[in-house]
């Protein structure tokens, strides 16, 4: 597949500003960090979860616990994904019973990843509620799922993909839209 960069929609500063705003929104809606836990979806959702937790600590002087969710075992597309996903550990070393869970992912697209993540979280216990925070919402939902916190809405065509690149995983902070040239 030949992909070409179409547009850059966020740079380093943009990303920091967006995350900071989202951290404020989460704290405002939940009235602080009490009972709050953050769970990120591997791989970039987990990085974003960690960053959000750090930002919340700066605001509220308390860092909520952060967990990492590997949804591979809950996927519904085992046979159709081109590359075999590596199964990693899910790392939630705190009790989620009656907690306010903030589920974090980088891009919200079909909603299937979030469906899998919700299934997995409830296997760990019964949270008070789950809210969804995503950096980008690119539309094209295939399931009735909606985010509570959105960094940025970017309407895309199906020919395009959105790439979130983070310093921790990709060496650079940016968000770009790529276009399939074929």
């Amino acid at each position, binding site marked *: 597949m030949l992909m070409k960069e179409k547009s850059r929609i966020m740079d380093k500063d943009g990303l920091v500003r967006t995350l900071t705003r989202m951290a404020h929104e989460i704290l405002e809606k939940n009235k602080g960090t009490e009972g709050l836990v953050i769970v990120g979806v591997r791989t970039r959702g987990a990085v974003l979860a960690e960053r959000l937790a750090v930002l919340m600590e700066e605001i509220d002087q308390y860092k909520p616990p952060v967990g990492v969710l590997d949804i*591979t075992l809950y996927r519904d597309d085992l046979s159709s994904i081109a590359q075999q996903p590596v199964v990693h550990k899910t790392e939630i070393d705190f009790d989620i019973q009656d907690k306010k869970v903030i589920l974090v992912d980088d891009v919200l697209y079909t909603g299937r990843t979030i469906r899998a993540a919700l299934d997995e979280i409830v296997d760990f216990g019964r949270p008070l509620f789950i809210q969804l925070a995503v950096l980008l919402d690119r539309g094209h939902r295939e399931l009735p799922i909606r985010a509570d916190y959105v960094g940025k809405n970017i309407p895309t065509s199906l020919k395009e993909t959105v790439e979130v690149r983070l310093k921790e995983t990709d060496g650079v902070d940016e968000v770009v839209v790529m276009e399939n040239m074929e």
Partner: protein
Amino acid sequence: MSLLKEELERNLNKPEVDKASLRKVAWVRKDLLGLQELSREELELILSTAESFKEVISREIKKVPTLRGKTVVNLFYEPSTRTRTSFEVAAKRLSADVINISTDSSSVRKGETLIDTGKNIEALKVDIIVVRHNYSGAAAMLARNVHASVINAGDGWHEHPTQALLDIFTLKEKLGRIEGLNVSIVGDIAHSRVARSNIWGLTKLGAHVTVCAPPLLIPVSIEEMGVKVTSDVEAALKEADAVNVLRMQFERDTENAFPRQLEYFKNFGITVDRLKHAKKNILVMHPGPINRGIEISSEVADGPNSVILEQVTNGIAVRMAVLFLVAQAHDQLRSKARTRGAKKI
């Protein structure tokens, strides 16, 4: 802002997150027939996948929906409660349906051939056949003749790959590595599929393996498999980081190659006295079921060096990993075949 910076830097210094998800080796095998045919990378992939499943089975809810809608048949031509149960639990934790067929209850006794039995099972739309058979090579023969995935749960004296994988997984979990470890296998090497699979797996992963048995129970040319050979159990224990004690199946001695039971225990039994000459933290493993007072003393089996029960737990994680990997590869092979077929139309 300084805190975020620190956090970022800390994260930058542990870049394992993404490196690990860049898969170096894909699992493309429909079947798992033995460790001989696997590369080091494939072995490592099974072990790392099993680590993730170990986390799953330590959860409150130990079940994941991964193999929902798939059917696993345990086709056992030899009695084995242990391995069969382990595969059954593993498959159920992956939400697969499990059917057990054993020699006592099926048409096996009526003279149906293994291939016919396999094809009949497949006609029930089964996805994975886990087979245990008393003849070496039976799993390979079945795999050649059915489209379903075949997992070898022990064939004759040949291989028992999942047992060796769980032994190796336990070693790695306890000692942090396999490379460079000294592992001794003590018992009836000649008739042991567990020994053979362990030799393949351990040597590929860089361990030094010693096999120890009475001379008549050491198969010819085994040293050419890259192992040291001895009939002196104390020599085998001396440098060992771990000892894998094999079950002595005296009832199977058709060639009068076995020493008498008491004599065996006297000369080869793993006892507290013998362990005094070994490394203090030597791991004692056993594929089970153990014969107390024959190959191992009760004090050792229940003692601080024993990891025998942990092996049983790890067996679930390893078998979940193997079931997951072959199912995934099989699905992908099938969907590729479907795409090719669709293009033709």
